[in-house]
């Protein structure tokens, strides 16, 4: 029988890993429309209202995702007679699944330590290993030694959902969209992997939590050793490739609203909604991965397990629970910031033509990521 604290922390971690991206996906659909409106000098959705006692509560349009869900679920589900029913129904599920499970690998807080009945914070940023009598409880859905590879394994699966949707719809536009999406996703996966490989070389690990722990160290005594700072080129390449992986503007050739509409053209109701949801879950997942790999994960600069140690020598003592809360809060803030950043990219940049997407992927980003690897290797060797 494992200890109670192990069970509690494990359940919390698993729930956060599964529900955090899911819970954020709904508000993100609102944020996308509302933010784009503000960027384009409009107001955006603000009219869905709850009427309680004759008074309207609009909540800045936050009720629109709710209204959308009600609409999508109650909408008639039209299925063309010629579709491959099994694959057609399977495709949205395959799209959502990899997006949902990837977040399990993201550590959202520092490890906790437990001895009989007590719970304490594992010391971080100094690399010490807790004693053998201590149980180490990760605030992470699943701690895998090959966590980075797990991310790739799952994001590769997303191709199947898109391709199957395009194929099973027996619609030439859907097929075109599916083909484009699969070609694009496979192309950018190469770059995505090579971009992260630089970080793997720098941190000498494939385990996200260990990467986050190492990012708590300081360069020259005052610069946080975040992935963004030791791998700026890698960050740029990763962001670009990740946006392309998610098929969002400026890489939305698979949807191409003006030309082919995309692989989900034959879908309606909640099945279409699931493709839509998968996109937003993936936005959260990308934000989580970028935060973990490049923005120091849950690390707050100069915050150690007993409080702030500023580079100019002063110190701010803090309780362990406050430190834990600060770290988790920092992680959530960073993820929200990255979500905002991705939405800003999506509503700022014009989209690429299909051949330009391929050109950028194979002729620009791939050589750049290889160059990044070579540079990283040179720095490590020297």
């Amino acid at each position, binding site marked *: 029988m494992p200890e109670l604290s192990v069970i509690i922390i494990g359940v919390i971690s698993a729930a956060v890993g599964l529900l955090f991206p899911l819970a954020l996906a709904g508000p993100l659909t609102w944020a996308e429309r509302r*933010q784009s409106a*503000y*960027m*384009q*000098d*409009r*107001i955006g959705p603000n009219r869905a209202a709850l009427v309680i006692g004759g008074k309207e509560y609009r909540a800045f349009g936050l009720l629109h995702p709710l209204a959308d869900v009600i609409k999508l679920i109650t909408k008639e589900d039209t299925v063309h007679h010629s579709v491959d029913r099994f694959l057609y129904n399977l495709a949205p599920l395959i799209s959502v699944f990899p997006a949902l499970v990837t977040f399990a690998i993201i550590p959202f807080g520092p490890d906790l330590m437990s001895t009989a009945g007590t719970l304490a914070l594992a010391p971080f940023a100094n690399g010490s290993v807790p004693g053998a009598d201590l149980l180490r409880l990760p605030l992470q859905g699943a701690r895998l030694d090959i966590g980075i590879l797990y991310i790739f394994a799952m994001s590769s699966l997303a191709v199947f959902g898109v391709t199957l949707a395009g194929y099973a719809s027996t619609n030439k536009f859907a097929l075109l969209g599916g083909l484009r999406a699969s070609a694009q996703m496979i192309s950018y996966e190469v770059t995505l992997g090579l971009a992260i490989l630089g970080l793997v070389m720098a941190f000498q690990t494939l385990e996200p939590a260990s990467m986050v722990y190492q990012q708590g160290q300081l360069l020259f005594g005052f610069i946080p050793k975040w992935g963004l700072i030791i791998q700026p080129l890698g960050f*740029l390449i990763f962001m670009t490739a990740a946006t392309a992986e998610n098929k969002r503007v400026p890489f939305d050739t698979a949807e191409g609203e003006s030309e082919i509409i995309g692989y989900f053209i034959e879908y309606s109701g909640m099945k279409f909604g699931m493709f839509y949801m998968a996109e937003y879950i993936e936005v959260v997942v990308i934000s989580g991965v970028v935060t973990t790999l490049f923005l120091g994960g849950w690390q707050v600069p100069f915050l150690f397990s007993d409080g702030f140690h500023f580079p100019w020598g002063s110190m701010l003592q803090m309780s362990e629970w406050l430190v834990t809360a600060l770290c988790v809060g920092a992680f959530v803030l960073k993820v929200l910031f990255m979500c905002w950043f991705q939405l*800003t*990219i999506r*509503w*700022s*940049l014009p989209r690429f033509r299909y051949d330009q997407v391929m050109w950028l992927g194979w002729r620009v980003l791939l050589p750049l990521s290889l160059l990044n690897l070579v540079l990283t290797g040179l720095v490590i060797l020297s």
Partner: protein
Amino acid sequence: MSSHGHGQDHGADNKGGAVKDVHREHDFVERLYVPAIASGMAVTIRHFFTNLFSKEKYTATVQYPDVKTPYPSRFRGMHRLVPREDGAPRCVACFMCQTACPARCIHIEAGETSDSSIEKFPVVFQIDELRCVVCGLCVEACPCDAIRMDTGFHPPPVQQRGTAQVGRADLLAFFGKGEQGTRMGAHPPPTAGGQGRIDRSEGDHGAGGARGGF
């Protein structure tokens, strides 16, 4: 040929074809695209935060049913018939407005009056507000300033076509904008009452034909 400069056209040799071949030279910084992306995003981010936090927003949206902007003073709204001192319409049933109307929405039936200075008056004066194109030509055409469009409000929405027929009594009851309270007597609110549908089955063929004024 300089490698600097923004988007210089070097396609001067147009060899007789209709397609002009344009070659644009971009220097290294331009081909990086990252500075351009950054400056583009700076614009959108500035607009986002200005519209979110600042008092002086770029947003010009008027949330219409909640917020209404005042109409300009020469706004053409619902028609009205201008009354004389005694309350009868100024209209002398000369049919000028009915002739001028491009939408043929005015229907007048004239009657004789004992007043020798006018000779005629409108027994029926109906305007089909659904047909009206709000051009104001009837107001221009009227020799007696008997019809105006200065009420300042829209024709109200109707559930049935017949109720969009506004009759003489209602037209006479409407005030001009800013005229409120200057006339005697109580007047009904601006609702389209009307006197039932007009049968237009006669003389309404070939719109814009020989009979049309314009």
